[in-house]
Every structure is written in structure tokens, then in C-alpha cells.
């Protein structure tokens, strides 16, 4: 399908500020006309978007796809199709696969599988260090050439500050942003936010200081260089405050939060429900509000799903012995839109956090809607109620902390490079 006309949708582009009802013409994977009524285009297929929104496809900055290495939980094909059904056109994949994405061959394997799957795009991140061991620099030039737009610590912070400094300097050489996990692992040995809930449940706590100590050290190292540094999955009010004070000095810094941190707290784990065993842990209501404020203030510019699909076995057992992480791609879009309902963000700003902002960070073409640009788009029905249940989740990971929630929006069509990768008859 190379010529598609989307008719009469509410066109929303957070980068340009476009917000009007009109048509979009797509040919050979690109947007060729945008806005107004388009009569001089002969499509092979038309999509009637009356009453719906047409937005840039979502870019999810952190999604574990479990391939290679843990395909028992999920794989590139399953998750890229689930993403497409959720309006996500790009999944950014951290390098902590098995084997680790520290060589072009692993990256090429991933991109080959993603091409073959023909769902959402998959963008692999290269490892900052070999094996993510924090000792030897990875071949970043080769990783970049193989298609990695950035390098990351994959959730395993580099402990040696000198290695971290050199890794950042080396990444900067190739204009690669570095995505870091702001955690001090020595302080993060528990399984739930350190506070009254962990104390009641008798679970070892992870203090917010685990984040601020990690962030403080990484900020100090990052500030000494010129690398573009991005901090992933902030979870605490104090972490957001620390970043706020640093942003005035260093414009190369950015940060994201996982969407579940903006809706849940550690109290949700009160009955040892392992779906709320997350890393970083859910914190308290003050942290949740501070994170929402930080997103509103653009201190945190990106929201991701932090998608971590698990099989039943990984989530079965006493809380601390279960694997941390939540399945998130199915609920990213409706939750981001709920931030608009909750008056945390304007609609354009909410969309920006999952489209143009991650695109800017990684230098991706998508995340925008412009003539000549890639036709990575999602058609959204903003009033299409659905319940989040194991049956309605498209991801193979059913470990969603939002099971039982009712949402009001869903993607009806998703296009990647002008190709329909999700349409109603697939729902």
C-alpha cells in the first residue's frame, strides 16, 4: 500500500502546533500533503478519520522486547505488533539483551528481526560498555554505524566514575547521546520504596537516596564533559528537584519518567501484588505529584512505558522473589491522554512527551507530522472505552499494573513508513 489518504481527522502535531480538521495524503512512505481538504490525490486506500485524531506515531523510549535472550517472555514480533496496535510506531530498545547489544552483529540481528516482523519500528540502543560490565568501552562507532542512535547503560549504572567519564567523552565523539540510569546500586538492594508501606509489609526498602546518590554522581561527571546525557526513569521528588537545579547550568541534560510512576504509588503494593514490583520502585504520593509537576514544568520532557514483559512464572511467588517490571506498551497512549484529563498537561504537550521529544533526543525522523516527513502516524479514537484485562492486552506480557482500569482512547489505525501496521480488523 503506497498511497493512502486519511480523511477528515483532527490533525495534531505537537511540534508545529498544528491542530485542525483535515486530510493527509501519504505516498511511498511519506506525507505528501497535509491539512485542508485534499481532492487532487488518488489513493489506493482511504481511511475515514471523522471524529478521530491523527497524531504522530508514539515513540516509546524504553521497551524491553526480550529478544535476543528471553523469548519465553516476549519477542520482537509480538511486541512490535502489540505496539502498533497501541499507536506506537517506534520502540526504543535498551541494550540489556542476552547477549548484550555491544556489537554490530547483535544490533543487526535485532533490526533484521524487526524488519521481518513488520510491526512498529525497533530502534536498538548500543551498550556503553562491553557486556554492560562497566569496564571496557564498547565499539560505539560501529554500533552507531549499525543503527544505534544512542548508547545506554541498560539499567546497570557504571560504577567506576572514571570509566563513566570516558564513556561519555567517547560517546560524545560520535555525537551519540548517553542514556544513564540514575541509581546507586548499593542503596538499591530492596524491592519497594523505603517508607511506611515497606515497613508494614516487612519488605526491604529502596530509599529515594538510591536515586539521588546515583544522579548526583552522574551529574557531576556529566557536567565535566560535553556529552548529551539523558537520565532514565526518574522516580522521586528529590531526584526531580536535583535535576531541576542542574538544568539551569547544563542544557545537554534531559530525563524521562515511566508512565506508571505518574499514576501509582507504593501503597498499590499493599497486598504483595507482584504487578507493582517495579524498578525503580513505586514511591509515595508526594513523589508522584512531584514527578507530575516535573513533567508539567518540562524538567522531565519524555514519558516512556518502561515496558518489561514477564511470563507468569517470573511474577509468581512472594513479592521480593518476583521479577521487577511492568508490561506497559498497551497502556502508554491512554495513560498519557489521561494526564490531559487530569489537567497535568495540555494535549499538545502530552503528545510531545511521547513523540517529538524522544525523537529529538535520539535524532529520529519520526515523532512529527510534516510534509516530506516519514508517515509514522496513529489514528486515535478518543472516545472508545475499553477495559484493561489480560485478554485485551496485546503484549505477551500480561503483567500490567493497570489490569481492571477503564480507558477511553485507543488507536484505530497505525502507519509505519506509510504502511498500515494496525487497522480495525486486526483489533
Amino acid at each position, binding site marked *: 500500500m503506497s498511497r493512502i489518504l486519511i480523511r477528515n481527522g483532527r490533525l495534531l502535531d505537537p511540534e508545529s502546533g498544528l491542530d485542525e480538521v483535515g486530510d493527509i495524503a501519504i505516498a511511498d512512505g511519506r506525507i505528501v500533503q497535509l491539512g485542508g481538504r485534499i481532492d487532487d490525490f488518488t489513493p489506493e486506500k482511504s481511511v475515514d478519520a471523522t471524529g478521530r485524531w491523527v497524531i504522530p506515531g508514539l515513540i516509546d523510549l524504553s521497551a524491553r522486547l526480550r529478544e535476543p535472550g528471553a523469548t519465553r517472555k516476549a519477542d520482537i514480533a509480538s511486541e512490535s505488533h502489540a505496539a502498533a496496535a497501541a499507536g506506537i510506531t517506534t520502540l526504543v530498545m535498551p541494550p540489556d539483551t542476552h547477549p548484550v547489544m555491544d556489537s554490530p552483529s547483535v544490533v543487526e540481528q535485532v533490526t533484521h528481526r524487526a524488519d521481518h516482523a513488520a510491526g512498529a519500528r525497533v530502534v536498538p540502543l548500543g551498550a556503553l560498555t562491553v557486556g554492560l560490565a562497566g569496564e571496557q568501552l564498547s565499539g560505539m562507532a560501529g554500533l552507531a554505524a549499525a543503527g544505534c542512535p544512542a548508547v545506554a547503560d541498560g539499567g546497570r549504572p557504571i560504577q567506576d566514575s572514571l570509566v563513566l567519564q570516558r564513556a561519555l567523552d567517547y560517546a560524545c565523539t560520535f555525537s551519540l547521546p548517553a542514556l544513564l540510569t540514575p541509581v546507586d546500586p548499593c542503596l538499591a538492594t530492596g524491592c519497594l520504596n523505603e517508607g*511506611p508501606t515497606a*515497613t508494614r*509489609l*516487612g*519488605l526491604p526498602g529502596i530509599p529515594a537516596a538510591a536515586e539521588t546518590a546515583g544522579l548526583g554522581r552522574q551529574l557531576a561527571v556529566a557536567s565535566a564533559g560535553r556529552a548529551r546525557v539523558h537520565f532514565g526513569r526518574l522516580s522521586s521528588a528529590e531526584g526531580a528537584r536535583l535535576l531541576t537545579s542542574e538544568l539551569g547550568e547544563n542544557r545537554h541534560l534531559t530525563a524521562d519518567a515511566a508512565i506508571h510512576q505518574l499514576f501509582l504509588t507504593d501503597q498499590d503494593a499493599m497486598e*504483595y501484588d507482584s504487578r507493582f514490583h517495579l524498578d525503580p520502585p513505586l514511591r509515595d504520593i508526594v513523589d508522584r505529584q512531584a514527578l507530575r509537576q516535573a513533567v508539567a514544568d518540562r524538567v522531565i520532557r519524555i514519558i516512556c512505558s518502561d515496558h518489561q514483559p514477564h511470563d507468569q512464572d517470573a511474577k*509468581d511467588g512472594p513479592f521480593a522473589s*518476583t521479577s521487577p517490571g511492568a508490561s506497559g506498551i498497551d497502556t502508554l497512549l491512554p495513560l498519557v491522554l489521561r494526564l490531559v484529563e487530569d489537567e497535568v498537561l495540555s494535549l499538545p504537550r502530552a503528545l510531545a512527551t511521547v513523540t517529538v521529544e524522544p525523537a529529538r533526543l535520539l535524532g529520529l525522523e519520526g515523532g512529527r507530522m510534516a510534509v516530506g516527513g516519514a508517515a509514522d502516524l496513529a489514528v486515535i479514537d478518543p472516545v472508545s472505552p475499553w477495559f484493561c484485562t489480560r485478554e485485551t492486552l496485546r503484549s505477551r506480557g500480561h503483567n500490567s499494573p493497570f489490569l481492571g482500569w477503564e480507558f477511553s482512547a485507543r488507536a484505530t489505525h497505525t502507519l509505519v513508513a506509510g504502511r498500515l501496521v494496525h487497522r480495525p480488523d486486526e483489533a
Partner: protein
Amino acid sequence: MSVQLNEHGELRHFLTTEGLDPQLLTRILDTAESFAGVIGKSIKTVPLLRGRTVVNLFFESSTRTRTTFELAAKRLSADVLNVAVDTTATKGESLLDMLRNLQAMQADMFVIRHDQSGAAEYFARHVDPGVAVLNAGDGWHAHPTQAMLDAYTIRQQKGAFEPLRVAIVGDIRHSRVARSQIHALNGLGVGEIRVIAPNTLLPADVDTLGVQVYNDLGAGLRDVDVVIALRLQRERMQGALLPGESEYFRHYGLTESRLRAAHPEAIVMHPGPINRGVEIDSELADGPRSVILDQVTNGIAIRMAIMTMVLGVQPETPREAT
């Protein structure tokens, strides 16, 4: 936690003392009291659980606790199966498989000890209807029968709970016993509960459990009626929590002289086993203030009471031993 109560508010499992209302807590103590008479007789069994099978499933070794549960079950004429489980078998799938296999052997009750907080609740959520789970200690979370036998001992010694000041001394952070004691004693209306420990042995926001926090032993013991010393695990010395046993004993160990700050008739308790010269000195542990052996005796009656309550076979006249 609602999983341990049925729709009538009665015990279906016994997992925690948190959230139990005063009437239910008192009923447990009263039922235990009626069993205390059985224990004192020459024939110490009653047929209340005859034909029932109790499985002691201990993922963490504990001769003392396992023995008291076993004895309680045998006093009730139950068949008892002791299963010591390799601690490496902690994966969820293995736990569930084990549970299903044991259920297939027609078990009626599981007494579970596990090193993970929430393990007993996890089992309770997965057992068949009609099968009960008793928590014999899960991680740092709860040891509810220990707390109830402590409460029973306190009532036995002091009569009423309301006027009492109770101090718990030691490793509160890692103590399932302390958490369960705090919930039980608060539920029973104890006047004041104090925890006394260095900050490294206090969990975050411990005051939210409803206790007064003291770092100083002398100040914390002032005018208290009950002093409970907690067992100190030796591995706490390795985890940068304490500098050493001698310093701990010097500042937090219970002795006769330090107890002078307490009420003259204050009693001393310990869940056992005791580290003499670490939590408490021998003179005090063996002295007239100590009710440590009473606690052990009372443990049988409490566990008999709980076992009958969760299986709904409480006797009207349990003193009539066969």
C-alpha cells in the same frame, strides 16, 4: 488483610495480626485459655482435629517453632506431616507445584515458615477452599502466633492491656515478631508501645506503626510494665548495621540494673532463642522478672486455639480431654 477472614469476619487463615479487631484478638486469647487446661492434664489431647492433616512446611529451619506447632496439632489429635523444604526451592512455580502436590494428599492446613515477606499470604491465595494457612513467620513481615502468645502471656501476668506501657528492644527493622507484636498489642488497646534501638535497626517511618521511638535504652525503659527483648542475628554485625556485640550489649542489652528505670513489677520477655550476654544477661533471663518459659508453654495453647478457629471446630467445652 482481608484474605485471612471469611465473609463473617472469622479467621479463615492466620497470616497477620494487623487489622484484626479487638474482639477477635480477645477471642483468640480466650480460646487459648480454655486450652491451657487441657495442656495441664495427664492426658493432654482432645479430638477436635481427629482425621485432619496438618502439614508443617518449613522453608526456613526452626526447631522450636516447628515443634510447638507440631505439638499443638497433636494435642488436637491431627495427623502431622513435617516437610523441611530446601531453601533453594523459592521460585514461584516450584512453590505452587509443591503446594498442589501436598494438597493432593488431602492436607487440611499448612503451617508455613518462609524467609520471604508475604509468602504465607501468597500460599493463602492459592490454596483450595477449606484449606487453611497459618503463618509461622514470613520474612520480616509477620509472626502472628508468636505475637498472640506474647499477648496471652502479658494478659496472664498483668490482667488488662489498657494501662500498660510495653517496650520492645532490639532489631525492629528485621523483626517479624516485633511487627506482629505491635499490631496485636495496639489492637488489644495497650496504653503505649515503645521501640528502643539504634537507628540502623529501626525501619523507615516506624512511628507509622503506632509506636514511640527511643534510641536511648534508659529513657525508653522508664516506667514500662513489659519489656520484650528481640533476638539479634549475628549477621547484623557484618552488614554495617552494628559495630559489634559488645557495644550492642553495652547500650541495648537488658540487665537488672538497667531495668531499674522500669516499673518495679515489670516483666521481661523474649521470643527465644536467647543470645545471653547480647540481648539480655543471664541473671535477668533466669530471674523472677522473666516470663520467657511461660511464653513457650503458652505457645502451645495459642496455636491450638488458632488451629481450631481457622478450621471452625472450636469446642464449647475443650477442657473435656479424652
